[in-house]
């Protein structure tokens, strides 16, 4: 009985550690997702403003403390590409979050089962003592 209990306890400990790692991972994903949302908003706003400009408007891009002139066309394309990229990254993160959630649920269920097993073993042992 003592072996079983020890085995279960150490298994529960291991699974709990995995669960903690999953939770830390999840936090990173959620933070990344939040950043992507902010970037997407900013780029959307720039896109809207660029769409309002006339074709001869002087657009400059900040490249490491230097303002470099760009054509309006280039800038619009650049912002569109960025938005596409952000969209793809966002989808990736959402899939990762889904996967992580499912893994967490599975872990929690297995930990719960093992805890129930443990409880039953201890119960049975106590009952056998009482007889």
């Amino acid at each position, binding site marked *: 009985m003592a072996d079983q209990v020890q085995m279960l306890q150490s298994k529960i400990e291991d699974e709990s550690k995995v669960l903690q790692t999953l939770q830390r991972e999840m936090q990173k994903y959620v933070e990344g997702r939040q950043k992507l949302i902010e*970037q997407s908003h*900013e*780029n959307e*706003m*720039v896109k809207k*403003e*660029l769409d309002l*400009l006339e074709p001869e*408007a*002087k*657009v*400059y*891009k*900040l*490249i490491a403390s230097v*303002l470099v002139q760009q054509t309006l066309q280039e*800038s619009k394309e650049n*912002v569109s590409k*960025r938005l596409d990229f952000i969209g793809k990254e966002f989808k990736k993160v959402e899939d990762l979050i889904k996967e992580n959630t499912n893994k967490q649920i599975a872990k929690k269920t297995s930990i719960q089962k093992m805890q129930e097993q443990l409880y039953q073993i201890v119960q049975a042992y106590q009952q056998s003592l009482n007889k």
Partner: protein
Amino acid sequence: MSQQQEEQKAIPLDKLTPQQLLQIKKQIEEEVQQLTQSLSQFRIANSKYEESKIILKKLDQTPKDNDLLVPITASLYVPGRLINPQSVMIDYGTGYFVERNTEQGSQFCDRKLQLLKESQDKLTNIINQKKQFMDKLNIELQKRVMQVQQIQQQMQQQKK
């Protein structure tokens, strides 16, 4: 839609224990605090854009070739001349800058102020909804306190 959600939360309120009610109350209080902080950040952004508009107007009135001091660093200024008071550089975001005249710059500020106003209104709405929910919570908590007081009174009367 969100009002319905609030109602759905309110229906089982009397089934919750006082500790749970207190917990929810704390949570909502924290949320309201954070949202109110965001609201004050909005106000700061608002005043910055309004200030920019005023400066743009002043630029319009400044004559060309006006003498001025240009900041090179935080404590080093260099004398200069205002070549083109009409032309301003606007930071659009994500590293893009556009050269525009003061009129277009002012319109840009107006558009941003409009966006800010819309977001502020949404935020104020959400804050008010949460405050209403907190009022409901407080009413429910008061009910419980009165119930407990009534029971205590009854017990005292029975002892007599």
